């Protein structure tokens, strides 16, 4: 599979989101890749609301079997969630379980007016009834089982998509 250029995907995603923005719209990135994407969108779209971030480590459904992995990050929602239009941002949408966990966490901050999901890439094979309203690229074919598609950031802050096979 050819891995799409992230810069192009970010531009596409920003143009999909732009017509739907309101002055009350806020972005919330999901750690870690989603936060990077949210940071770029925040600049590209010139959003005035501060940027939020969420680490779903404490809300994962496989916590009992896997435990905590890595160093959980502090979630930070620097605005009032209640009655706000929120766009959850992630790098890759796959099973939908991360989105489910992020929604649960988000609602512990308050009751948003509307929540949309924006992702760079949808790799399909959902295990939950979740869909992205904004999506820059959909994989035509499923990746081999066990392979991992994720966003990387190099020392210069450049983003790229990477496939690791099992």
């Amino acid at each position, binding site marked *: 599979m050819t891995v799409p250029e992230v810069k192009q995907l970010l531009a596409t995603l920003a143009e999909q989101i732009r017509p739907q923005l309101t002055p009350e719209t806020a972005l919330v990135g999901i750690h870690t890749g989603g936060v990077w994407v949210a940071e770029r969108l925040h600049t590209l779209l010139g959003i005035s609301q501060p940027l939020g971030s969420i680490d779903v480590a*404490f809300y994962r459904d496989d916590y009992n079997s896997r*435990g*905590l992995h890595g160093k959980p990050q*502090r979630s930070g929602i620097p605005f009032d969630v209640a009655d706000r239009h929120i766009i959850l941002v992630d790098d890759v949408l796959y099973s939908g379980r991360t989105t489910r966990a992020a929604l649960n966490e988000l609602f*512990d901050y308050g009751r948003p007016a509307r929540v949309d999901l924006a992702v760079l890439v949808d790799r399909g094979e959902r295990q939950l009834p979740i869909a992205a309203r904004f999506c820059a690229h959909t994989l035509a074919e499923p990746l081999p089982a066990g392979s991992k598609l994720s966003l990387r950031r190099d020392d210069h802050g450049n983003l790229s998509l990477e496939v690791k096979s099992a």
Partner: protein
Amino acid sequence: MLNPQLTKDGRLRHLLTLDGLPKAILTEILDIAAPFSEVAEREVKKLPLLRGKSVFNVFFENSTRTRTTFEIAAKRLSADVINLNVSTSSTSKGETLLDTVDNLCAMGADMFVMRHASSGAPYLLAQHLRATGRDHISVVNAGDGRHAHPTQGLLDMYTIRHYKQDFTKLTVAIVGDVLHSRVARSEIAALTTLGVPEVRVIAPKTLLPTDVERMGVRVFHDMKEGLKGVDVVMMLRLQNERMSGALLPSSGEYFKFYGLTEEKLALAAKDAIVLHPGPMNRGVEIDSAVADGVNAVILPQVTFGIAVRMAVMSMLAAG
């Protein structure tokens, strides 16, 4: 010997003491506690990590702060919390500790938080659970006799790290009744493991264990000498209820020589922080002017204690 607190692959199974616990685990607990402290600022102060689990708080000794913060921590992790005030229960009717535990296991306990006046009681409990094939049940020591109070030691480390960041540049003084203090033992173990270059203890000879130097500390009997230039002052409570025999002339005289006053604190570094595990005896080991002063971080300690206990319980539940 296998550390009874750790699983075969080195994860936390029980928390019984900080003595001998690897630096990596201590640091991991402090790291995990940091994001938990943010939960208090949310509208819904709950995380689902211990959903469906039952945590039994079994306190054979009185406690307000520790028991309450353990209860809050477990509830913020969505556990069901059962508080047993054992002084008014079956033990007073003659039931043994292990019989009590077996009964609580039969009620579906997933975790025990235990305080006991006898040093080693939580070890006995952990051993018993292993011997009876109930290894999945975790034990957290909430203070045993004079031996250890690991979560207090951890929350003190969290507090120090919060205000001072780097352990390897600090001089820390522990002041007071070290002899009877499980808190002091846990603090010394953690400070040493985390790389604090100079740990001092300041106390009269009668309130120090005979082999205290072997714990890797510098001993001072003169408080004014011992406080010079320290970055962190960790006060201990004068343990009246553990005081048998005449170790001290009077609490008034103790305050004169070992009570922390503004005058004595002025000898420490200007930005020194003052910790106290509570409950405080104002006018015995600490003057109100210090306890309520700008250097005191005694109330933040209590708040941090919740996050640290959440970190410990979530790590145990995932083990």
